[in-house]
């Protein structure tokens, strides 16, 4: 009797754990590669996403089925977003004496970073859905995805735009800041964290501890400010 290879294969790829298995596998593989090479293009989320998409397409499993089998991971995203409050609170305590420069920069810089992107996208002729997805591109992915969905964009695309922004910021950020004669470590950190979120923060941490602390602070402040005011601004504008 011939073993039923075809049936076994189908049972495996349509098992509810298949999505979890390829996600965990791809993520750990990319993480190991990233830690070995420290190559900035190997952003774990971005590359894992590509690997998982390739596997799904090769196996002929559609996104709806994959999404259902990874529900358990997605459910944890909510509490993880709430947990961002802890590092924000710890960072807030560290910067008492630079409160006003930080706050003013957050306000003006945040509006410029967000507004400029939407304006350029509109001038270049992107459609409304894409514009609303690009608006939160400067903030950390879980917040950007929630906000994008809220204002009429697409969460999945927002995650990708956020990652692209972060990687560009990490590659060109330090050079651009030096060109603009920005030497103050707090100012460099602020710029990297505010515009390039977590990826920028990891670059800032390599520069100095002060630079990294301000980047982490700017990232979380920008995240919360965007989450609070971007939906409000959009609902007023439409």
């Amino acid at each position, binding site marked *: 009797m011939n073993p039923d290879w075809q049936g076994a294969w189908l049972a495996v790829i349509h098992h509810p754990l298949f999505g979890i298995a390829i996600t965990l596998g791809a*993520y750990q593989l990319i993480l190991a590669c990233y830690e070995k090479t420290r190559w900035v293009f190997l952003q774990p989320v971005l590359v894992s996403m590509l690997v998982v998409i390739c596997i799904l397409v090769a196996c002929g499993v559609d996104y709806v089925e994959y999404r259902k089998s990874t529900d358990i991971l997605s459910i944890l995203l909510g509490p993880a977003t709430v*947990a961002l409050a802890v590092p924000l*609170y710890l960072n807030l305590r560290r910067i008492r004496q630079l409160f006003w*420069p930080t706050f003013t920069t957050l306000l003006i810089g945040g509006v410029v970073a967000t507004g400029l992107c939407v304006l350029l996208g509109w001038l270049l002729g992107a459609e409304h859905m894409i514009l609303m997805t690009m608006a939160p591109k400067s903030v950390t992915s879980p917040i950007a995805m929630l906000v994008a969905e809220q204002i009429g964009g697409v969460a999945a695309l927002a995650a990708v735009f956020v990652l692209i922004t972060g990687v560009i910021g990490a590659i060109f950020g330090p050079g651009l800041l030096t060109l603009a004669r920005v030497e*103050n470590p707090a100012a*460099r950190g602020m710029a990297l964290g505010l515009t390039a979120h977590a990826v920028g923060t990891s670059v800032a941490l390599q520069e100095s501890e002060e630079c990294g602390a301000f980047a982490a602070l700017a990232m979380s402040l920008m995240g919360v400010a965007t989450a609070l005011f971007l939906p409000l601004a959009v609902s007023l504008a439409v």
Partner: protein
Amino acid sequence: MLLRGLTWLVLFQLVGTALNHLFLTMLPGPIIGLVLLIVYLMVRGEVSESLSLAASSLLRYLPLLLVPPAVGVMVYAADIAADFWPIVGSLVLSLMIALPFVGWLMQKLIQRQARRGGTHES
């Protein structure tokens, strides 16, 4: 310890969800939960051990949690292809302009505050 912290995080998120449905429909539930937790921490003045343990464990795996929603991009391949150049152009240009601007602004403001602080002392 970890479970107690996790329970708090889940509770804050659920309160956020309730508020989202009742009054604040323009803000997502987890964001309201995040703001409530910051306010709570500020009032308390410290982070309890269980909460910081749960938060750091969960945030360590944040990139992993983001993979499944990001895979959804495969459904929108056509939309990206249609708007490819506007997307890349505005993402790259806005970052190239905004990043040095933010750094420059922050540096100017820090210098101004330092000068003012100096005149106060003299």
